């Protein structure tokens, strides 16, 4: 299952399913925002958001309740070849060993109770709406995306400006993180898309731009007319003017923006591609597409401190909508955490584990009943994994305890926060991001006073 499928669903369902409980967020007023440039500068944060589209099960990071789950589950968990508990109650075969290493090194906080009481009340376990809410950081889906809000606020407070190079990047195309406000967003604040291989479709084939008849007679007589770029070769003025004229006629919008960024991206991507990953030895990245994404994101953030947020999905590992044959989930989680473990090694190797953080979450977690198809249906409690960012995060290890809620009805077996334990609504992730980037009163954006996670001072 691909990330795009899930983000796209949200567009359809949001209009009919918007919660009535939270109608105050909408578009924020700049005057209502308390922005601290000092916090923004001190943190100097750069974030990689990893979205586990489809709704990943929380069990990899939490099998503390597995015995009770097994008692009540429709199908037996013996379906999985092996379920071993690690020291902190993680699923050893599903990335648990890597989680333990990250926890032991103080590189990660594993939150086990990202739970939504509000969705429970509203009977909402829909991919589309939950994804949209999480990515907009509000139960009111009328507003803009988290990244859009941050972009506007940083810009209006002079923290970034038109000289900032690619402040927001996605490796997975458009998503609700970048959902627009009703007012137009300045071109340089819009997200730029790249791919993990740093393919460069932005580049126009030289021969197609340097047709001899594009050059004037005078240009053809220039000494460097036949030379390569390195030796002074140049594009014909006709082609350059062609771009300019077309852009004068192109109406404002995404296509004009894409054309505007094309030439810059052509060079930017080449520059990133030249950047080498240090030798990570035994911590080197596993060979999969998701690893390439994370590696590329870190190379990009390292090379370009102007980039503040990069979003990506877990494409390459597979989707997380494990309604059936969930055995693959184990392999996927192992691949995910092997990669995250390498990513931390990469960050340390380039001295960026203080500034760059990685947040990993989904639209929701899953039901823990192993259903008739040996899968899990939608749930309402998930894990949040926060890595790195050690200059501003004080990692807490494992946070939160769960209990099993046995409803007695078919296929309705849930994990829920244990009474008195630390838990939070998924919107708290947005609150934390806002705070991290200097917004002192995130409640104005989230439409509710959702707690800022306890790792942020």
């Amino acid at each position, binding site marked *: 299952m691909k990330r795009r499928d899930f983000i796209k669903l949200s567009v359809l369902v949001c209009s009919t399913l918007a919660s009535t409980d939270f109608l105050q967020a909408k578009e924020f007023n700049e005057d209502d925002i308390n922005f601290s440039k000092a916090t923004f500068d001190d943190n100097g944060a750069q974030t990689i958001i990893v979205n586990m589209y489809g709704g990943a099960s929380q069990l990899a990071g939490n099998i503390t309740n597995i015995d009770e789950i097994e008692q009540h589950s429709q199908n037996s968990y013996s379906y999985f070849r092996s379920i071993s508990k690690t020291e902190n109650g993680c699923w050893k075969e599903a990335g648990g060993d890597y989680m333990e290493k990250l926890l032991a090194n103080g590189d990660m906080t594993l939150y086990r109770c990202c739970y939504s009481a509000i969705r429970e009340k509203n009977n*909402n376990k829909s991919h589309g709406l939950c994804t949209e809410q999480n990515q907009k950081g509000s139960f009111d889906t009328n507003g803009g995306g988290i990244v859009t809000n941050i972009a506007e606020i940083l810009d209006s407070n002079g923290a970034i400006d038109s000289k900032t190079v690619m402040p927001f990047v996605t490796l997975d195309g458009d998503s609700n993180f970048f959902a627009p406000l009703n007012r137009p967003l300045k071109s340089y604040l819009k997200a730029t898309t790249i791919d993990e291989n740093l393919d460069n479709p932005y580049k126009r084939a030289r021969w197609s731009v340097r047709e001899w008849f594009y050059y004037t007679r005078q240009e053809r007589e220039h000494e460097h007319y036949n030379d390569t770029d390195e030796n002074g070769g140049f594009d014909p003025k006709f082609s350059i003017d062609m771009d300019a004229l*077309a*852009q004068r*006629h192109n109406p404002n919008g995404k296509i004009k923006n894409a054309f505007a960024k094309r030439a810059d*991206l052509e060079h930017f991507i080449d520059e990133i591609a030249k950047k080498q990953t240090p030798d990570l030895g035994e911590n080197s990245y596993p060979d999969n597409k998701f690893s390439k994404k994370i590696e590329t994101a870190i190379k990009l953030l390292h090379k370009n401190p102007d980039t503040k947020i990069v979003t990506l999905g877990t494409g390459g590992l597979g989707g997380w909508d494990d309604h059936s044959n969930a055995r693959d989930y184990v392999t996927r989680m192992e691949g995910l955490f092997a990669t995250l473990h390498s990513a931390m090694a990469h960050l340390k190797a380039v001295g960026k584990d203080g500034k760059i953080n990685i947040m990993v979450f989904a639209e929701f977690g899953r039901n823990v009943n192993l259903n008739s198809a040996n899968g899990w*249906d939608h749930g309402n409690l998930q894990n949040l994994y926060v890595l790195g960012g050690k200059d501003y995060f004080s990692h807490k290890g494992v946070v939160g305890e769960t209990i099993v809620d046995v409803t007695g009805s078919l*296929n309705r077996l849930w994990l829920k926060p244990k009474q008195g334990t630390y838990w939070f609504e998924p919107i708290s992730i947005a609150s934390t991001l806002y705070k991290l980037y200097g917004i002192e009163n995130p409640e104005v954006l989230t439409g509710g006073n959702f707690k800022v996670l306890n790792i942020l001072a």
Partner: protein
Amino acid sequence: MQKRFLNYLFTIILAFLLLGCGGATNSATNGSTINEGNSNSDSSNNNANDEFSKTEYKGLVFYHKNLPSSNYKLEQVDNNTFNSLSGAQKLKVANKLLNTLYFGYPLKELKEKIASGTFISDIQNGLNVDSTDREWLENYILNDDIFRQYTSRYYLPQVNTILARFYAAKKLDKYYYENWVAYTLTQTIMFSPAYELTNTHTPDISNVYNHLVNMLEVDSGMRFITYVHMMSEDNWRRFRSPEDNGREMLEIYLQDANDSHVPLAGQALKNWSLNEDGDTLEVGLNKNTKPIHLFGKTIYTGEDFYRELVKSSAFTRGVTNRLVAFFFPNKTAQERADIASKIVSSKPETWQDILTQIIFSKEYLLNNHRAQSAEETFFSLAKKMDYRVKRDSILRFREALDSMHQAAMKYKLGKIERVPLDTLSFAYYHKFIRMSVLLKHADASQTNHDAWSYSGWQDSFVDFDKFSNDSRDDVVSLRGLVNYLFETILGRDAKEDEQQFFKSHMIEQRDGKELFKSEFNIFVTRDDPQDEEKRRRDNKLRIVISVLDYISRLSETYSQMEVK
């Protein structure tokens, strides 16, 4: 043919009944439904006295004739409306309509059709009439000499064939339209074959698509088509557990995301599962016997669930919303709801009732703007430009769609964002249209269908008789050629600054006159007539390439604009 297919469908239904998936008797435990008094089933209202549509199963009417356009509630562009537009507006509207249908005509032919005064009704009526030689067409697109036939699933041959059909079809007729409807539906969340999933298999692509075409051909109603699709293995490979399938069917077709309905659907579907062995749909005999209250009815089995789902009034609203969102992505939620309400009030019972109503509407043809899909751009350009494909061109197009994130039939939830315009996706879109279409000129002397130079637009596209020119006036002739290219591709003349741009590069002052520079001189004279013809052709080619390159950099090329 119709009777044969009808029998085939009955066989499917009977098979389900005999396998215990449905309830053929009236006993509650065998899966009948009890109406709880909510009159939410309106599926059999329209044609109650119509002999044709009396074939039904528990209130689910199988066949419906398309509504006459006079029944449409969404205001339509008719001949009068169209004819009252300015010449430039007519061209834009005509292009918008044809591009939407992945079709196009060379400029001269299009102008003649517009001038007839019956352009709209001719197109619309044509969609109801069979005029394609289907046997020829189907053989042609499977001809390995013309379209390379791949056997490996890696190359997704099923998608290639479907795309090749749109390129090869010569007439905008009933068969073409049924294919277009099927293609449109398979791009949406409702019928996407979802070949990206590990559980799906490439034959699912042709199964979903071809079943749609076959059922449309015999006037099957949209409820019946959906009912058959939901119960298919193809659909179960997409949504694979009772709770998953039940949830998604409710959400996709009814836009019902109430989680409390999901366990009810799961209960009704409890004996349905996708067996890991070959990803096979397996329906057990341990069907549900407890009454379940859904859709204002009491249902029992999975078959009850699917049947009553499509019979419910929320179905029409749900599927209409899906299609309105697909064609009007930039309208506000309220505007989309208003459009959908009008369509629903016309009581559509076929997919054509919704789709035809949309694409001939004023709201769509005059007031809508959106990014144009790559299929709309490519297929229409191919027809307008006399574009010749080489053996693997369609495969390359299919791959390019993937890069643009507009892949056909790939995504689990369809193309909800039909034309992604993030910088990377658009860069691939622009690259394909620029390099593989607009700047791709076919070498007339090339006869090898595998050769790179075989594909591209042909010289006939820019024959001297296609644009106004005067060998005594270079400036007028350049202007004529530029305008011809603009009108063909964009449906408008070049603006004055655009004309000046090309003029300043291609015309020079010589002997006190404004004349073509030598490399652009389309009237060059030589003693040798063959040499002269070649030079004229080459010089014209340079102008055409330059203008088309500029056009490739305009957002209009990738957009359907409002016609103001």
